[in-house]
């Protein structure tokens, strides 16, 4: 579906090195790595936000509809939830349905800043779904949520992925436990400039922990 051939990306100093990888339909990738390593930079490169990354570096993006869940909700604060969803192409009826899917039935006429963090993030997730994406990019979707809310959101995301088997997902996280629930494939970004140190399918949940432990130790030893 997507083929990454990113030559690198620097902001004054190199952040990303060469990244070669493919993303297939149904891939549920968890992107892990030390904080500040460039995970969001990689998502931005893939999504096309980062216009200094040439088009040829992300083959197939033109055919992909991207739903991007940012760390902040990034809904337009002067528009209601329903209007925010309609802006990306949902009909008024679809907007209500999507808000229902993320547990916000009846909140269509609220402004984003009237909601709690967790609710606003779910509303932003509804907007991701409004574009009928086949690639879902999630940037630390569980950060600063309490464990109960984070767990609930995880279940919703798994539910969405199960309902759309053709949809691919790349989820930035720093918690191996997220990967156990969400991922069928793991990317580990590390080094300077950062490269994918690991790109493989996920086996047993237990092995993720062991693998991450090894990768993190490797990282420490390397630096």
């Amino acid at each position, binding site marked *: 579906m997507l083929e990454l051939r990113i030559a690198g990306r620097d902001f004054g100093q190199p952040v990303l090195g060469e990244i070669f990888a493919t993303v297939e339909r149904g891939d549920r990738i968890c992107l892990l790595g030390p904080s500040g390593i460039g995970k969001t930079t990689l998502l*931005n490169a893939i*999504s*096309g*936000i980062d*216009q200094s990354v040439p088009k040829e570096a992300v083959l197939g993006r033109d055919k992909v509809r*991207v739903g*991007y869940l*940012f760390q*902040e909700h*990034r809904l*337009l*604060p*002067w*528009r209601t939830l329903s209007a925010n969803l309609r*802006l*990306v192409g949902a009909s008024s009826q679809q907007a209500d349905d999507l808000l229902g899917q993320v547990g916000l039935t009846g*909140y269509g006429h*609220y*402004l984003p*800043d*009237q*909601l*709690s963090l967790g*609710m606003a993030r779910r509303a932003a997730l509804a*907007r991701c779904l409004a*574009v009928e994406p086949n690639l879902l990019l999630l940037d630390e979707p569980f950060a600063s949520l309490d464990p109960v809310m984070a767990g609930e959101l995880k279940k919703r995301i798994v539910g969405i992925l199960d309902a759309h088997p053709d949809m691919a997902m790349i989820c930035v996280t720093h918690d191996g436990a997220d990967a156990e629930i969400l991922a069928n494939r793991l990317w580990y970004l590390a080094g300077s400039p950062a490269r994918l140190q690991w790109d493989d399918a996920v086996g047993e949940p237990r092995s993720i922990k062991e693998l991450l432990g090894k990768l993190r130790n490797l990282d420490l030893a390397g630096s």
Partner: protein
Amino acid sequence: MTPGTGPLRRSRPPVWSYWVVLPAIMVLWAVVAGLIQSPLLPAPAEVLDTLVREAGSGELWHHLGATLRRVVLAFALAMTLGALIGIAMGRSALTNALFDPLLVLLLNLPALVTIILMYVWFGLVEVAAVMAVVINKVPNVAVTVREGARSLDFRLEQMATVYRFSRWQRFREVWVPQLFPYLMAATRGGLALIWKIVLVVELLGRSSGVGFQLHMAFQVFDVAAILAYSLAFIAVVQLIELGILQPLERRSSRWRQPEAAHA
């Protein structure tokens, strides 16, 4: 520190405090005018008489209307052009570098010079009059809007890119709400500045409008007429402020302080 005296807890002043200085000046004016009995300082009642007489004869409305028409036209043109230039300069460093020296020049160009040049080059015509006002105002609007365009939230820009907003959607839904406070600031300053320049334009080269009437009154030292026309137009500008600008501002900033729905 006792409550209410700290710098952060400044309490609202009592209502009566707004009604002290201006009425006091009115009284002083009336007293002085009564004492010196000179046509160069008519009493407030005389000014009111003049106002009523001019309104009765229709002259006042004719000239107020002419001035208001020029103000509205010049204002609309200056805001549109200034906003477009400001956005372009705020969004592109190259555009900014190209046009910034010109902007500085225009900002420092006295209004009178533009007015004279426009009349000399294009004759004493309506287009020249309105253009002169627009040229005077555009740089101020551009500078204010440029600040706004520079502070546009890049996070929302990225969002608009990912979700493939059309140019129009990006402008209408993402930029305009963020630029609104800057546009309001430009409007506030603009209205006050523009009507003052319009009066000069009328005084120098038009045969209608408040400025023209001031010119006529000046020739015969008719101070009552000068004050009557000035006060009438100040009242019009205040009406625009209260009737249009403030409601517009309240409506558009409602989203800023929404009541929390659920926590």
